[in-house]
């Protein structure tokens, strides 16, 4: 928090104004007994330090190694994810979409920022930005190229629009030459962007392990 004292000149409202509004509101809510500052600290700590894309990576790695789990995950993602202990806010209605050699899936929330918190944490800034939210729908292939994903022209791209009612997670393709890896090692290969569908899971490098 120490490196954010500098003013953000590009923004119309001075930072101090928004800081003041937030502080005022918190004071009001605390005075009315509507929020507990310690519970807020705990919540922030959870999303800053505890919940993130490693959870999703473990789900993916299990689906790659356990066909029955994968079946359950594709049929009822919410329960299959909960089964791994990842439950909670914004994970109530999940759907997992599987990448294959013919279909590549990518996820956006065109209207705001709906995102599966229990498996990915809070969304990165680019996911919430106007340009991604518009262009993921209007020109998904161009967006994928910018993320470094080069697909064969005959691969179909499907774009899924997450909402407050349903949130999507991409099950990426398992890279080749990973038969010798166990679930934990596989999970280490899976990064957040692959589960949003804007990256592929790379084959392990020689140095991995």
């Amino acid at each position, binding site marked *: *928090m120490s490196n*954010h004292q500098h003013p*953000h000149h590009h*923004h119309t*409202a001075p*930072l101090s104004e*928004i*800081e003041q*509004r*937030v*502080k005022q*509101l*918190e004071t*009001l*809510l605390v005075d*009315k*007994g*509507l*929020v*507990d500052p310690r*519970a*807020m*600290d705990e*919540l*922030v700590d959870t*999303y*800053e*330090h*505890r*919940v*993130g*894309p*490693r959870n999703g990576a473990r789900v993916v790695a299990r689906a790659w190694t356990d066909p029955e789990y994968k079946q359950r995950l594709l049929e009822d993602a919410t329960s299959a994810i909960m089964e791994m202990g990842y439950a909670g*806010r*914004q994970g109530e209605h999940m759907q997992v979409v599987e990448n294959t050699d013919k279909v590549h899936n990518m996820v956006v929330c065109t*209207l*705001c*920022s*709906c995102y599966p918190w229990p498996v990915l*944490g*809070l969304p*990165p*800034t680019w996911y*919430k*930005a*106007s*340009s991604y*939210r518009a262009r993921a729908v209007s020109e998904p292939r161009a967006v994928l190229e910018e993320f470094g994903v080069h697909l064969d022209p005959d691969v179909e791209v499907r774009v899924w629009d997450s*909402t*407050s*009612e349903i949130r999507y997670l991409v099950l990426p393709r398992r890279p080749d030459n990973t038969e010798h890896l166990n679930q934990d090692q596989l999970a*280490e290969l899976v*990064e*957040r962007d692959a589960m949003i569908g804007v990256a592929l899971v790379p084959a392990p490098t020689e140095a991995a392990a």
Partner: protein
Amino acid sequence: MSVELLSTQPQEDGEPVFDAPWQARTFAMAVKLYESGLFSWKEWSDRLSENISLFEQRAQVTDSEDYYSLWQQTLEQFIEERLDPQDE
């Protein structure tokens, strides 16, 4: 390796979850008020979407500050509409 993995759990690319402490506070207030039933999450995202869409008529959401300012605006609207000033 596993220690590094733990410490990088939230955002693997090193991007902070929140850019500034006020963003974390407005985030937490909204989640807590949703949990206490002031609004449903559908109401929340509908209103946030509306505010984002109005904002995008004149600007672009490009960073975390833009985004959480809209979050704060949404929160203020719900408080004004749904919280009785005489309450307690």
